[in-house]
């Protein structure tokens, strides 16, 4: 029951943000300097086609009416027609969603598999050589731009040693995991410094907590101690960090998709900017905004479920 009340309250908190997102996205086309229709269709557009596009975008109506019909359209899932693809924006975006979400999920799983053991190792060897090497490595990857890291991985593991493909998404599941390995690894390496640092700190904290001290004193084997008491805390911290960084992850995927030519929404937004496909940019920005608030909400719920100490108010 408490969970339901918590959910309701969080949903109400989200409403103004949702409204803000819609307003910002709505403004995208309206803020284009000069005549938006002209900007989209180019200098050679005929007067008829310009008038048609203005009509299609509702640019002739008063601004509040435009916003009203925009809200109505969004509510019915109508995000407009792409100028490049000549198809509904939502349709094109939906086709591109799978690669992006697969990539992010893959990267998250890989990050957890890589970072939790490293953080535990660093924490249990605190202040010693292993710890210092892990932390120095994390700081080094923090200074590396993701696109550069990705291209270098391509050069080494796709060109010099052709183990992985250079581009694409693949067809079957195994094929996809193979295609997306380098991109997911790139995101993992970019995420690792953040994850390892926070996890290390939270594991160190957890290891000195009274209940862990007690478990150690009563003679619980080290492995069991880690699994039962320390790992749970580490997982909590991971969920929080991943949830909080989801916007960053999604943003990062834009570049990584570009580097590895993955047909996802990140690649789509970049090509739409170059092509001045404003309805498409609008649609993708909206999807990104909605994804971030949905995932933040999901994180809160998972967090509340994982940690009984978190009260719902």
């Amino acid at each position, binding site marked *: 029951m408490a969970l339901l009340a918590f959910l309701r309250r969080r949903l109400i908190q989200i409403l103004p943000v949702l409204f803000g997102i819609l307003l910002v996205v709505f403004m995208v086309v309206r803020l284009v300097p000069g005549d938006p229709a002209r900007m989209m269709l180019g200098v050679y557009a005929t007067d008829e086609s310009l008038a048609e596009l203005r009509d299609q975008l509702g640019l002739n109506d008063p601004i509040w009416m435009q916003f009203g019909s925009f809200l109505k359209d969004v509510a019915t899932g109508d995000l407009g027609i792409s100028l490049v693809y000549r198809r509904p924006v939502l349709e094109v975006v939906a086709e591109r969603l799978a690669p992006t979400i697969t990539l992010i999920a893959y990267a998250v799983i890989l990050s957890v598999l890589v970072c939790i053991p490293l953080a535990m190792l660093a924490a249990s060897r605190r202040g010693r050589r292993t710890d210092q090497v892990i932390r120095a490595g994390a700081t080094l990857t923090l200074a590396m731009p993701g696109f550069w890291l990705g291209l270098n991985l391509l050069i080494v593991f796709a060109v010099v040693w052709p183990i992985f493909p250079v581009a694409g998404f693949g067809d079957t599941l195994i094929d996809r995991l193979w295609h997306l390995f380098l991109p997911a690894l790139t995101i993992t390496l970019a995420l690792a410094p953040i994850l390892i640092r926070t996890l290390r700190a939270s594991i160190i904290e957890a290891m000195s907590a009274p209940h862990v001290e007690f478990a150690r004193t009563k003679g619980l084997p080290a492995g069991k101690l880690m699994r039962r008491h320390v790992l749970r805390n580490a997982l909590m911290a991971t969920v929080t960090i991943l949830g909080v960084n989801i*916007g960053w992850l999604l943003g990062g995927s834009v570049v990584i998709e570009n580097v590895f030519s993955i047909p996802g929404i990140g690649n789509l937004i970049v090509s739409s900017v170059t092509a001045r496909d404003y309805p498409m*940019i609008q649609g993708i920005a909206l999807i990104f905004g909605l994804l971030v608030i949905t995932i933040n909400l999901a994180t809160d719920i998972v967090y509340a479920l994982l940690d009984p100490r978190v009260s719902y108010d």
Partner: protein
Amino acid sequence: MTEEHAASTLPSRRLPSLMGRGRLSALVGQRTALVAGAVMISAIVLVSVMAPVISPYDPVDQDLRNALQPPSWTHLFGTDNFGRDIFTRVIYAAQVDLRIGFLCVFFPWVLGTILGGIAGYAGGVFDTLIMRTVDTFTAFPFLVMAIGVIAILGPGVTSMYIALTLAGWSMYARIVRAEVLVAKRSEYVLAARALGFSHTRIMLRHVLPNVITPTIIFAMTDIVLVILSTTTLAFLGLGLPPPAPTWGTMIAEGKSFIFTAWWMVTLPGLAIVLVGISLSLFGDGVADWLRERE
């Protein structure tokens, strides 16, 4: 929600820089980090300014007979597909990239501080309006926000400044607002009010100096991520148009040549990594020093 949970809802990209302890400065010592960082950045700036003296080549002129030469003593970093010396382009680009990076931290800092200050000090409708805007802006992934703004304004350096300012101000506003809310209730502000000082004077002369340090600490640790973001935008073709060299565009040009000329991608990126490490050292050093003074 618990206290720690409330703190965890800070916006995305910002988290890495908020991690505080356990960074480079903790590994090598605060003073060493500060000095090493400052020396490295000065050296990079110096090399970049002295570029015409250091390098016999021109950063833009093409020499197609010498295209795609691997690194050698005549061309330290090799040449690109137009036969331009990559090392020369890298050191010329440092000026542009560093200036863009610094300004893309400076502008959001100014805007965020002003708006956060107003939200915290004035309260009421202003507070609600500004903080709801902050919430909205942080809902968009940083890079998507920046790309969206550049989509509206068209690619270019000015667009990049505006884009990164709009994408980055919200965190500063949050920090300043929180600090102002505390300062507002302090005795020195009450005293100033009792003396009949104007709100403007209290805000600028009494509140501002007391709330500014945390924002500088944040800016110092944020600068690396901002530099990485600006090079990313340049890589995506949304920054300075060619042929002017920037590290991001150079790597983007090299992308088509990864099969034949790895140096076009790998070597310009080393410059970014070097700047990233120097700024981490310097920023951490300054941030630690400011924290101690607090």
